[in-house]
């Protein structure tokens, strides 16, 4: 499968993402600069990695969402292409309107750099098929603006249609207020687009894909992606 990782000024997790994708798929992703206006022919997956694109000016992801490459990404997604956004990538996808809602400042006003636990809410997606529904896994997180917000109607639709991919939970799998460190509505850590092919999440599964990183809890995300394209 051909994965393309977008690089914006201030992106800093593109290499972690490339390592995780290559580990699971055996193919080295292409890294593409934001000033490009088209995706390489044969692109299967576009990844927006974490970082602080454009210094988080105005709003996190606001500038990057208006980059020259983004119309091509929107076109790719509208034709059913797969898109993954992690952390700043998730913020960019909401700013670009490819995912609903917005990421607000953490309710505590603190930058949260820690480990969290996520529960898989939908295991029937191209990104989560290597987990069981309800599985709990560890993931590092590092963000100042990860407080997921959507209005009541949007939230209801996300919940009803199985578009909540991951929720912040305790290690035992309970979606408590204490486990919801950034204050996200309904403990939401990651959501899917209507067709299930665009995923955005705040934590960083790509930083837990090797025993040397402290574990492989994040690997199923990339194995799921690899499996989705192996059978396609």
């Amino acid at each position, binding site marked *: 499968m051909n994965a393309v990782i977008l690089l914006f*000024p201030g992106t800093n997790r593109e290499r972690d993402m490339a390592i995780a994708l290559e580990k699971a798929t055996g193919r080295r992703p292409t890294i593409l*600069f934001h*000033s490009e206006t088209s995706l390489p022919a044969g692109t299967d997956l576009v990844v927006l990695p974490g970082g602080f694109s454009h210094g988080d000016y*105005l*709003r996190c992801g*606001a500038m990057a969402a*208006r980059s*020259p490459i983004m119309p091509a990404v929107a076109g790719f997604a509208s034709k059913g292409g797969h898109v993954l956004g992690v952390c700043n990538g998730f913020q960019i996808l*909401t*700013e670009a309107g490819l995912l*609903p*809602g*917005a990421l*607000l*400042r*953490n*309710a*505590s*006003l603190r930058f949260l750099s820690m480990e969290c636990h996520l529960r898989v809410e939908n295991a029937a997606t191209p990104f989560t098929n290597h987990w069981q529904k309800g599985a709990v896994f560890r993931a590092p997180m590092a963000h100042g603006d990860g*407080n997921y*917000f*959507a*209005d009541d109607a949007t939230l209801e639709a996300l919940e009803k249609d199985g578009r909540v991919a991951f929720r912040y939970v305790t290690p035992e799998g309970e979606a408590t207020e204490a486990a919801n460190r950034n*204050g996200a509505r309904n403990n939401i850590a990651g959501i899917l687009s209507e067709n299930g092919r665009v995923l955005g999440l705040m934590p960083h599964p790509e930083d837990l894909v090797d025993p040397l990183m402290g574990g492989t809890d994040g690997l199923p995300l990339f194995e799921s992606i690899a499996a989705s394209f192996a059978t396609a």
Partner: protein
Amino acid sequence: MAGAPFPEQKTMPSAELKTLKARVTVMPKAGVLDPEGKAIGHALGTLGFNGVGEVRTGKIIELELTETDPAAARAQAEEMARKLLANTVIESFRVELA
């Protein structure tokens, strides 16, 4: 950063051109949590300013526009606000001309 292809900035020399100033105020919508406003309200209480209710924070963005027709300038600023300056999922905006 040699070779980094950033688009060239088109800055207008303000002294030579007749311009109009637009001020765009961006505020979080009602019902959207504003933790910064909350923290400021809390600090005001600590300083002894009692009687402060809800505190909300936002942004003011000033634009120098070469469009000098007020109606057209306002329309331009509103379009800029909708497309970039405000995220209308969470924020509302107001345009004033000076």
